[in-house]
């Protein structure tokens, strides 16, 4: 049985999710007695292949085709489809990146084989691999199994496995060719670009440090801002802070402000009154620091710290820098 991993390029280095996929493959291979191969392609294929060769893999399959130098959904999908047909794996593993979301379903459609996505775990049961996926906004887990014959396409969620656990070793690099023709590519892409951070869009923020009345006075706001900067987070606040004029209204989170759902919401000196809570309860992780142990925010927080914000935060900021 063969497991094939599709490695993604991160500017000439293997994307972290690719290394995480190696760890996933290790687990499946151990349970089902399979060999593991990795696939690289694109303009940095050589560098990627060299790096991949230092891991404990059966082989590294390198595809070189100029039509793959720049990303296109059609190009990548067709290439992966062909290499799957050539290599005949049972499982094909991807990291669940934006790029994979864009082209891998096309592979699924080309092969008419299922694509099980965004899995957070895999377990082996009765000689089969069963994959665990979050559903309903991560409120429930589900166990999903592929049906029929393989190959099965599988993607894992970022950080479902730890890239550091990928076994080192040495692998043979094998170059293969595919049939790719520009008529197969139905899109024209421009080069990627980075955008200047425009206004404050808390709804798009991944990390938010939010400050409430517990910060004490306007002069203390920079303490919160420093923490936000150290974390690479946006600064938000509860309504009383805006009402008092300490921060502009654009920072307000709550029922009459913005609704946010960042990966982490760090609430400093916020009591957790309902009109604030309804704006941030969708956050994946809530960390609350407040000197009042009875503050309602601790009911919804994942992590709670009963401490004086003015004492703790500067030390936290320092430790992060």
């Amino acid at each position, binding site marked *: 049985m063969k497991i094939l991993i599709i490695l993604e390029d991160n500017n000439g280095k293997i994307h972290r999710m690719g290394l995480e996929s190696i760890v996933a493959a290790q687990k499946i291979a151990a349970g089902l007695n399979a060999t593991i191969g990795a696939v690289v392609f694109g303009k940095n294929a050589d560098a990627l292949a060299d790096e991949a060769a230092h891991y404990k893999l059966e082989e590294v399959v390198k595809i070189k085709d100029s039509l793959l130098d720049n990303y296109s959904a059609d190009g990548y999908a067709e290439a992966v489809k062909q290499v799957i047909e050539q290599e005949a794996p049972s499982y094909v593993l991807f990291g669940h990146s934006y790029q994979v979301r864009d082209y891998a379903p096309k592979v699924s459609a080309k092969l008419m084989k299922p694509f099980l996505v965004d899995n957070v775990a895999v377990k082996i049961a009765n000689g089969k691999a069963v994959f665990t996926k979050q559903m309903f906004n991560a409120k429930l887990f589900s166990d999903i199994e592929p049906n029929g014959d393989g190959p099965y396409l599988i993607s894992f969620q970022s950080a479902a496995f730890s890239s550091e656990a990928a076994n080192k070793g040495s692998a043979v690099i094998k170059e293969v060719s595919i049939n790719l023709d520009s008529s197969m590519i139905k899109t024209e892409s421009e080069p990627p670009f980075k955008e200047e951070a425009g206004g404050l869009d808390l709804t798009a923020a991944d990390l938010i440090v939010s400050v409430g009345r517990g910060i004490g006075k306007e002069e203390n706001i920079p303490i919160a801002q420093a923490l936000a900067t150290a974390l690479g987070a946006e600064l938000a606040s509860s309504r009383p802070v805006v*009402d008092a004029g300490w921060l502009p209204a654009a920072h*307000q989170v709550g029922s*009459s402000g913005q609704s946010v759902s960042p990966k982490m919401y760090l609430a400093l000196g916020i009591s*957790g*009154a*309902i*009109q604030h809570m*309804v704006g941030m309860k969708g956050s994946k992780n809530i960390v609350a620091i407040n000197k009042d142990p009875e503050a309602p925010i601790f009911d919804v927080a994942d992590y709670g710290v009963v401490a004086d914000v003015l004492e703790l935060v500067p030390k936290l900021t320092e430790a992060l820098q």
Partner: protein
Amino acid sequence: MLSNLERLIFIILAITSLGLAWVTFGRMFKAIGRGSDPINWKKVIKNWPKGLAVFISQKTLFKTRPVIGMIHAGVAWGFTLYLLVNVIDVMYGMIPGFHFFPHSFVGNIYRFFVDIFSVIVLLGVVLFVVRRFITKDQKLIINEPVLLSDAAKKGIKMDSLIVGVFIILHVGFRFIGASFEVAINGQDWSQPAATLLSYSWSGLSAQSLIFGEHLGWWMALGLILGFMPYFPYSKHAHLFMGPINYMAQIERKSMSTLEIMDLEDETTEQFGAGKLEHLPQKELLDGYACIMCNRCQDACPAYQTGKELSPSALEINKRYYLNENLKEFSEGAESLDGLSKWMLSEEAAWSCTTCGFCIEVCPVGNEPMVDILRMRQDLVLMESKFPREAMETFDKIENYGNPWGMAPDDREKWTEGMEVPKMREKGSAEYLYWAGCSGAYDDRGKGISRSVAKIMNEAGIDYAILGNEETCTGDSARRIGNEYLFQMQATQNMETFEKYGVKKIVTQCPHCLTTLKNDYGEMGAELEVVHHSELISDLINEGKISPDKSLDEDITFHDACYVGRHHGEYDAPRNVLESVMGDNAKLIEMPRNKEQSFCCGAGGGNMWYDIDKGKRINVERFEEAIDTGVKKVATSCNFCMIMMEDARKVTGQDETMEVYDIAELVAERL
């Protein structure tokens, strides 16, 4: 008294004036008739005692600005007397040999009052003119950023000047004429002031005196003839349009309970008001009754905190639009599309908290708040133009049954650890206790619900709650203008009430109170709904509960708009407070209390969106509490509680002051 030629000229002028007045008054009433929802004029006329009472007593002017009100009363009574005076003067001028009770007691009394009131009116109007043009009383000014048409800006000054000058000249010349008459006929101490003035003419020839008397007559009555056709363009029309407005008052279940719309009716093209003619006729009449005194603006929490809303500007803009377009509009021309373009800005419309203070203080019975509610209906139902947060709130109500967007099956969480009977288990009960969305999800609100439940348990009341079967009454949806969502919510709740045979409801949320009682009432529900303050007050009076009188500190009470002005209850919550106050504690009233309570700022949908302009309304109110010097503030509404608590933090009083609901104060003393 007049010569034949004079009589002829007068007849010609009178006919001309009356003819022109017929045209202008006709246009005025036709314009009013352009509105929707016709006024039942027969009923209005039958209502004449009401109009007369308001006119004679002038009592509506004393609610605010009592001193100005007193002066106006003098002017108004004087002017009323002058109606009679003008008739008698015409007779005196036109009928040869006519004199009104020349040497009799009746005539003397009449002349005495005319004399005194002439002086009173003159002094009063001169004072008013000085107030407006010289000392420039701030209250008569409508500040930026309120939308006020150019015609209005110019017109207010012009019209005030014309009216002021008209009255001064009309009464002045009448008075001067009377003084000449006294000079001719000899001193008359039933006309003391005129007699005093008559001494100024002592050196004049008999001919000059007669000329003076005629001049006085002609100026006085000539000005009347000149002014009559102008009435419909002047705020002075309030003389009669004000009382008529009172006679035409619409009986509503509460100030904010408008008629239920038939949304299914396919023939209805317009919901709410997008143009002037969409407003009911009564509301067009409002524009003509408006005296442009700005009392409503003084009262309005939005205006007082710097928002774009002035209810006064609303009515004034309406009036001046009518003035500027009277002929065309009265003949059926369509008015400008979009009230937000000229009458009231969109932001102003959303700034209204529906507190009803403007309606409460208006001396002529205007209802600017109702215009705003109708405008909102148009913006929501027809234009889909409203604050983004309001849209999110609609979605939350529709999808989760509460404007917070909290999980519908968490609605009973407040009962954890308490014995609170559920309707689905009990089957039926005398009272349904309606916790409402804030009473179910807000931390403090849950505490209030628990307090009420504790009180009812202690008193042995037969009640039950709907728990998770409760869903939002739809109050916020209705006040923001989303009739469709409101009716959906109402229908759902009414079905649940049917299921359990609910007849009586007690709730601590005043917004739920008015919606269940009045708006659901308009939809056909027959429910007896009381506020928790009323129930608790009754329980205390009946001795069913006896809380400890252990509150030893002074306390102030913030009247909720929807318990006070909208529901008429001011005593029950105070009675409840008295029941927990010890001998050393006093209830200190804020300056704006009871009927004149100042809104906390959360009503009319403002709980859910932010009008980011000027000062926060809740801070404005809380500062009033701080100024009383008390350390404890009592409320009787979930929203007021949230607003006062927020304001407490913003004003830095979190360590020094506390806010309590009356139910909390009682429950912790049982």
